[in-house]
């Protein structure tokens, strides 16, 4: 075992060599279903507990067992946590992909591989750690059935030793992960110890990377967007959820169901203050949401692109009949099979005008965990305030990956129910006209079924109604109505979350981005400034329709690069049609290969646009 470690040629272990501190990307390759998730989370947790900012991306296939998955942990003390294509430390536990995984490494990277596959580690420019995983796991885990899983925690022990994570950190993280399962915790600790001790003894070469304790995660959270959004729905007072399982949105619903069951029962009767239905398809889930919203529930559904397509007709009904509804779209590549577990921002354009007729919808676009939490609450309020469909555009990267986040603020804003007239209100006001623009904001008043008043009832239909909701096919009635809907949309413009803007007086380039692109864009700006001397301004769109600040931003910067995770620049198109006067300066920097967006590619694409402008591309 003395040959467990191979040093690259040139002797990195020499005296002049200093390891990089707290800046590492670890890529762990395992077969799907091998139970590596908890081991990976323990590793991540221990880094977080050391006070080092850390995030993770789980690249997984549409498969339950056997196909390759990669779990990528990035720790960076400056807080750059976007996806990185570059790997500093590869843990090649999947023989099926090991050759490719190794070929993809750049010189000087570290590699941890099972001794049984040592022949695959045939490069001499890597720091290679060949670990006798089979022997180690056999020693600590007599039950052969469990070995496939237990081997994972052994590499965590090995990595802790190589990177300088104190073993107590790993132990604490194991206790945290297996809080209620003492036996599992014990087995994991023994196995991690075996890996750790083995590496202490055999991995004598200096690691190219080290992790050192900092104090940069105190009070922060590690959470997935689907968890954050489920919490937003819980505290936002959602009373109705209908859903149909689809990755990557299912975990939002499943998380919420757990929370609702625990926290949303009447303290006296223990009865539920919510209803959840797993529908027969997305058409049905959306129909149920509209039925519930019409009757006054705070109703929502969560789905992904394929479900959105099925909801198209219902989306129009919500818009024209003015029925509150919230749809969370956790975007993925689509349609059909192939890349359903890969992230995308490909639904934004479709969602914006989903359905037939002159439809325009409100989209809230969270860019971090805190916004996932807040926008869920906001969407429930806005849907009722505007009496219309409100989308929340999340994506697989936000929804299913582990993000570090500043703590969430407890909700303080009262739940907003919008313009609902009660029986007393009807008695006071006399007449009630469901679709009349009483306040000049295009938003009418509604009554809920069950309101005890002779004037309360109205008849809901998609099109062809007068102010009093009676049937009419008169051109002037309908024109007036859809003009009012357009006014309502203008009111929405002022009510949705404003963009986040970072202007820069010296910048000639303005970057516009949204959603999960934020960390990559922030890091790209840093790189552009530091390595290329390119100053950039930044505007992050947080909702559609866009408001005046976006226009001012486009006006200010001669080159506007819209960063999007789709092929056709869907938001860029929307901006060009909103502001035709700036259409020619609005360019795109697009990323659509299914991987989470990374800073390097954003920087490269923005530089390309700059070169194009100068005619040097």
């Amino acid at each position, binding site marked *: 075992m003395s040959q467990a470690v191979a040093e690259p040629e040139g002797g990195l272990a020499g005296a002049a060599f200093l390891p990089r501190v707290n800046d590492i990307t670890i890529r762990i390759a395992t077969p799907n279903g091998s139970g590596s998730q908890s081991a990976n989370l323990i590793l991540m947790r221990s880094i977080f507990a050391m006070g080092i900012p850390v995030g993770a991306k789980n690249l997984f296939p549409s498969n339950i067992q056997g196909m390759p998955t990669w779990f990528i942990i990035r720790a960076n003390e400056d807080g750059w946590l976007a996806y990185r294509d570059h790997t500093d430390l590869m843990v090649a536990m999947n023989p099926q992909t090991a050759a490719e995984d190794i070929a993809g490494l750049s010189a000087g990277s570290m590699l941890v591989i099972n001794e049984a596959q040592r022949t695959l580690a045939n490069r001499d420019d890597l720091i290679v750690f060949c670990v006798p995983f089979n022997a180690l796991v056999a020693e600590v885990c007599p039950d052969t059935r469990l070995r496939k899983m237990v081997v994972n925690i052994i590499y965590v022990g090995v990595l802790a030793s190589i990177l300088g994570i104190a073993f107590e950190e790993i132990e604490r993280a194991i206790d945290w992960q297996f809080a209620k399962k003492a036996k599992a915790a014990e087995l994991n600790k023994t196995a991690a110890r075996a890996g750790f001790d083995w590496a202490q003894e055999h991995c004598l070469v200096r690691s190219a990377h080290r992790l050192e304790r900092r104090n940069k995660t105190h009070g922060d959270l590690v959470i997935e967007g689907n968890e954050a959004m489920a919490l937003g729905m819980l505290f936002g007072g959602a009373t109705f959820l209908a859903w149909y399982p689809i990755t990557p949105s299912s975990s939002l619903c499943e998380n919420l169901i757990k929370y609702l069951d625990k926290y949303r029962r009447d303290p006296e009767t223990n009865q539920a203050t919510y209803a959840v239905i797993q529908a027969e398809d997305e058409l049905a889930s959306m129909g149920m949401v509209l*039925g519930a919203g019409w009757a006054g529930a705070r109703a929502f559904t969560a789905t992904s692109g394929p479900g959105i397509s099925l909801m198209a007709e219902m989306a129009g009904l919500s818009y024209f009949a003015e029925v509150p509804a919230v749809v969370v779209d956790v975007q993925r590549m689509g349609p059909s099979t192939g890349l359903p577990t890969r992230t995308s921002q490909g639904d934004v354009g479709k969602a914006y005008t989903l359905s037939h007729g002159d439809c325009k919808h409100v989209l809230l676009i969270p860019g971090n965990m805190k916004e996932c939490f807040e926008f869920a609450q906001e969407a429930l309020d806005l849907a009722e305030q505007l009496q219309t469909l409100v989308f929340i555009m999340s994506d697989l990267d936000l929804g299913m990956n582990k993000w570090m986040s500043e703590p969430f603020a407890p909700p303080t804003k009262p739940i907003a129910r919008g313009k609902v007239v009660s029986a007393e209100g009807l008695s006071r006001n006399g007449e009630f006209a469901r679709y009349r623009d009483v306040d000049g904001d295009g938003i009418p008043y509604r009554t809920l079924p069950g309101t005890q008043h*002779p004037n309360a009832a109205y008849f809901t239909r998609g099109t062809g109604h007068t102010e009093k909701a009676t049937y009419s096919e008169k051109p002037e009635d309908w024109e007036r109505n859809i003009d009012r809907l357009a006014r309502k949309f203008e009111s929405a413009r002022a009510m949705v979350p404003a963009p986040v803007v970072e202007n820069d007086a010296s910048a000639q380039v303005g970057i516009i981005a949204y959603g999960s692109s934020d960390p990559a864009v922030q890091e790209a700006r840093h790189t552009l400034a530091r390595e290329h001397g390119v100053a950039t301004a930044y505007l992050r769109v947080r909702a559609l329709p866009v408001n005046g600040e976006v226009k001012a931003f486009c006006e200010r910067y001669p080159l506007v690069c819209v960063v999007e995770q789709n092929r056709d620049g869907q938001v860029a198109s929307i901006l060009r049609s909103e502001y035709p006067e700036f259409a020619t300066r609005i360019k795109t920097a697009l990323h659509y290969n299914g991987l989470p967006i990374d800073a390097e590619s954003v920087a490269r694409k923005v530089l390309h646009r700059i070169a194009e402008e100068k005619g040097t591309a």
Partner: protein
Amino acid sequence: MTTMLTSPVTAAEVPAKGPKTNRIGLTQKDYQGAESTLCAGCGHDAITSSIVKAFYELGVDPHQVAKLSGIGCSSKTTNYFLGQSHGFNSLHGRMATIATGSSLANRNLIHIGISGDGDTASIGLGHFAHMVRRNAHVVYIIENNGCYGLTKGQASATADRGTRMKSGVTIQDAPVDLCTMAIKMGCGFVARSFSGDTQQVRTLLKAAIAHRGAAVLDIVSPCVTFNNHEGSTKSVAYARSHEEPLHEMDFIPHFENISVEYDEGTTTVVTMHDGSRITLTKLAHDHDAHDRIQALTLLDEAREKNLFYTGLLYYSRERDALDDRLDLVDEPLATLPQSKLRPSLDVFHQIMQGFQ
């Protein structure tokens, strides 16, 4: 418009003169809606009248009713009755989903859903089956004319095999029997009737309203414009001449404290959730409405031999309604105050700690 009354009026309050009123002081007119725009003689209008009468006679507070429908001539009729109730003429085939959502948002309302055979048996078949499976608390009425009226007479999935459409097309495919399907999906109230048999329709409607859970009424309702010809099994003439009631029915609402005398040999009494009773007096056919297998066999036989049995095919109180099963609070979800909807600050901090 009459002023609404929240509680039944006592005899002393009932005006001595003026139009006849029901137990909550409303006239039959108060249960009417907008004027129908359907073809003169359309079966759907007869059902509308029966609905008006049933609700009037039961003395249901119209503010406590929600009317839902899909799209079709039949679905339009939600506008023609109960003008003081909220109504939702939604999307083709999707009424069951809208009704499910609404019935959970406000479990205290009576939900009445109107659909057509195209709406339910074709585009909405899946939703129908699932709503019934879940046992949502909805009275689901199919106004079955064997064709698509609103799109001008195309065949629907309930048209019987071998019958001829007005266009000359002869039906080759097997028909969908919505009553069979409802029973198979676990429905506890399944009835078939004929729009022209207004007495039976009305009795069935009252019973359906008293039932907690999904109640399915498949009512043959002739389309006099597109499917009323010789060779159709959904024409007025065919339905008139072929209808074979399974029993004579009577409905005794819970608020009527009448004791009925009946012959145990010929009459069965069904007691409902709210204490209302249905009496079924045997006719030529000896059908036990509590026997699921018998009901299915009867429907199979009817299909084989093109028989038109009407009445209460199956009744059971075994399954809880969806809102009961979900153990919802008594107060409608729709009007719960913030104090019931937003967990406390303590809970917030407790949850947050789990992520730190």
